[in-house]
């Protein structure tokens, strides 16, 4: 929706979803509920990484654990230098745990953060999983 070309829709949906700045891109699940939000301009790879992260979150919300892990791993593998990668690594581990019930998935994720994204907030969040 363009702020001028679709002014009425822009205002209506902007109020509904709390979008107060452009560019804002929302990823909605099939029920119309927001699962991920991207605010501000991003370079192509960062943008694609965020979109893929959002698809992972949408699958996670639907309890499609394997689909979610696939999307999260795609972010890490295809866009390892993106801002989304550390968050995706974290949620990939959670998705694997949800699918398997095996706590080693979390320990493996914590170990992976020992090798990459060490300074990210997601590394701190995963630190409690260390074996």
């Amino acid at each position, binding site marked *: 929706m363009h*702020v001028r070309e679709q002014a009425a829709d822009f205002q209506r949906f902007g109020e509904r979803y709390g979008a107060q700045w452009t*560019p804002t891109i929302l*990823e909605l699940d*099939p029920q*119309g509920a927001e699962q991920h939000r991207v605010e501000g301009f991003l370079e192509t790879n960062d943008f694609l990484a965020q979109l*893929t992260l959002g698809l992972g979150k949408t699958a996670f919300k639907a309890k499609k654990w394997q689909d979610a892990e696939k999307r999260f791993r795609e972010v890490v593998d295809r866009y390892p230098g993106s801002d989304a990668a550390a968050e995706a690594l974290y949620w990939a581990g959670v998705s694997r745990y949800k699918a398997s019930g095996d706590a080693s998935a979390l320990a493996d994720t914590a170990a992976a953060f020992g090798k990459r994204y060490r300074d990210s907030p997601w590394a701190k969040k995963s630190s409690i999983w260390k074996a």
Partner: protein
Amino acid sequence: MEINWRHDVDQVLKDAKAQDKPVLLDFSAAPM
């Protein structure tokens, strides 16, 4: 990743629900 942009948001939300597909909602001020 190819995005099929549409502008009829109300219909898009209905279609997404019927087809069990996610939606990308873009709030833009970029030059058209």
